[in-house]
């Protein structure tokens, strides 16, 4: 079988509107009717997806994400280019589609599975497994109208993922239901992936994309503007949002191929970032549990009403390990004049697992970077944590145990 599972070539989708709808009807008849406006929701988009890859599709509202998914699943037809797909495509675009409130969970499952094109015999085989996955007990044979929304989600997700597809398309439906079920559904998606399913995920949720994907595609105004590693694309995406508010974005290639993105309005900037040991010596390698000091020097170029420094320690994949800011610690500075230099000294024990980490810094006015983003600096500092003297452990957190044994 070919390694390339999905190939999208120069894809374009146009939404046409006519001055009157009857003109559209005449257009089908083959009469040359000019449309009044053409809106290209997607154009010149090309990418290839190999077997077993997991790809996140990100972009702002109206960037063309949903259109792309519709074209890939086949609910909408492209006007330009083509989508070549091998294998079974299954989409979780909306859970509980076609559920009837007066039918029981079991009947709805049969119906929904039929809608997915399964035969009666296949469905009978699938049902016990769906029932077990949903874990809603006797409710499975009660009308769906008596379900809570969470229960409905469980059944719907169970049906949608009852058979492992070759390509699974997930549209932001992940953040539903209770925490337990979220984990369970994430697990199932992960299992599919290990068995070779290609994932295509659309989400605004950075952590969901980072947990599941190893590649990301950024769409903006119907164009594919970035295709690459998740961290790099997500950083670029964050910067893009910032840029929309007249901010500048600089992208710099760091040693080792990682890409640093700096964005912001520029009223203040981080001048120096350094990690130091207890004696104040700069360090790059840190032992697990070692007390360290993070020194950040910020300079204010134009007076700002309020200055907050935030930082996030991220792991190799860009997932947040720990982050806070001086708003939460009640150390925000008010009415900071131009020319002020602020030195922050942040001390903490490095209670995180072995691996390479990065620190992102943010100079903002409130607790989020959405209101006033003076400067957002990804990969401001890179460091490595090594386990020198602790017993071996896995994971990103150092949660020192004391283990007692009773052998009888």
């Amino acid at each position, binding site marked *: 079988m070919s390694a390339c599972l999905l190939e999208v070539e120069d894809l374009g989708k146009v939404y046409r509107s006519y001055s009157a709808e009857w003109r559209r009807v005449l257009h089908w008849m083959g009469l040359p009717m000019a449309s009044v406006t053409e809106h290209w929701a997607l154009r010149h988009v090309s990418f290839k997806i190999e077997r077993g890859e997991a790809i996140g599709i990100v972009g702002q509202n109206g960037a063309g994400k949903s259109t792309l998914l519709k074209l890939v699943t086949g609910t909408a037809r492209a006007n330009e280019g083509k989508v070549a797909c091998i294998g079974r495509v299954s989409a979780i675009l909306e859970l509980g589609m076609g559920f009837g409130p007066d039918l029981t969970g079991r009947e709805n499952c049969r119906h929904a599975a039929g809608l997915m094109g399964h*035969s*009666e015999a296949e469905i009978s085989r699938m049902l016990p497994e769906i029932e077990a996955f949903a874990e809603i007990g006797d409710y499975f044979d009660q009308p769906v109208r008596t379900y809570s929304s969470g229960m409905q989600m469980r059944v719907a997700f169970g049906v949608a993922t009852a058979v492992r597809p070759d390509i699974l398309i997930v549209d932001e439906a992940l953040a539903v239901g209770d925490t337990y079920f979220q984990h369970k559904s994430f697990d199932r998606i992960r299992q599919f992936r290990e068995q070779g399913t290609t994932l295509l995920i659309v989400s605004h949720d950075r952590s969901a994309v980072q947990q599941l994907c190893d590649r990301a595609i950024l769409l903006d105004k119907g164009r594919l503007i970035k295709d690459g590693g998740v961290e790099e694309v997500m950083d670029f995406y964050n910067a893009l949002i910032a840029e929309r508010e007249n901010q500048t974005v600089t992208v710099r290639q760091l040693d080792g191929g990682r890409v640093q993105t700096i964005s912001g309005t520029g009223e203040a900037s981080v001048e120096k970032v350094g990690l130091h040991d207890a004696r104040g010596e700069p360090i790059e390698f840190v032992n697990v549990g070692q007390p360290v000091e993070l020194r950040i020097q910020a300079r204010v170029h134009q007076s700002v009403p309020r200055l907050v420094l935030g930082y996030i320690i991220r792991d190799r994949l860009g997932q947040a390990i720990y982050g806070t800011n001086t708003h939460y610690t009640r150390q925000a500075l008010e009415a900071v004049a131009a020319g002020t230099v602020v030195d922050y000294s942040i001390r903490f024990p490095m209670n995180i697992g072995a691996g390479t980490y990065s620190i992102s810094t943010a100079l903002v006015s409130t607790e989020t970077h959405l209101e006033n983003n003076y400067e957002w600096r990804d990969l401001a500092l890179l460091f490595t944590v090594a386990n020198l003297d602790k017993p071996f452990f896995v994971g990103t957190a150092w949660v020192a145990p004391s283990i007692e044994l009773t052998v009888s």
Partner: protein
Amino acid sequence: MLELFRALWRYRFFIVSSVRNDLRARFARSHFGAAWMVLQPLAQVAIFSLVLSEVLAARLPGTTSKSAYAIYLMAGLLSWSLFSEITSRCLTLFVDNAGLLKKMVFPRICLPVIVVGSALLNNLLLFMAMLLIFALMGHAPSLELAWLLPLTALTVAFSLGLGLMMGVLNVFLRDVGQVMAIVLQLWFWLTPIVYMPSIVPGGFQSWIALNPMTPIVQAYQQSILHGQAPDLVGMAWVVGLAALLLVLALLLFRRASPDMVDVL
């Protein structure tokens, strides 16, 4: 064309389960359940026969029995209810299923097939209830009742062709749905269901003759009430029209499909 049928066959389970769910959803949580499906048209027959034959003293020419008029009415309604159910449901078919069409990938042709399936099922139940009432009235149906099979097929073809065309247009021009709802009401009265064509003044006779539902309804009445074979020659043009509409509807459906999802 072949792939169309293959897709339908592959989705047969979905179609059957949709028809079943349709039926179940309609009568869920009602005490009389499926009985309503029969009670409603029968109430209509009862009202018409009461008003027209008792109050207005309408008599079917050539017969003396009072029940003849009720049977005439029921024969017409059997045909009309199938026609109007398929037409009016096809009219809003794509608009009603917008969510499904936008989010799921399945052969679109399943939707009209489901409508036809559930309308046929309703019609069958109604027919059986009518047979029961005929028996109570002492009206013995003849073997000519077998004509109802091709007549039902013709009614389905005509209403599906018309309904599907209007249904596709209704996605883009929602006025079509509103207009058709009125047209259907008017159409009912232009069809000799509650009255005999002979009582209509001369000026309207030609209108009734131009109505493609007239030969169909008359054929129903012939085979049910009089136990006679329908006038096949007079019906030929309706068969041709139904076939034409069906082909046009399929073509239109094919053409409009890509645009439909975008507009819904």
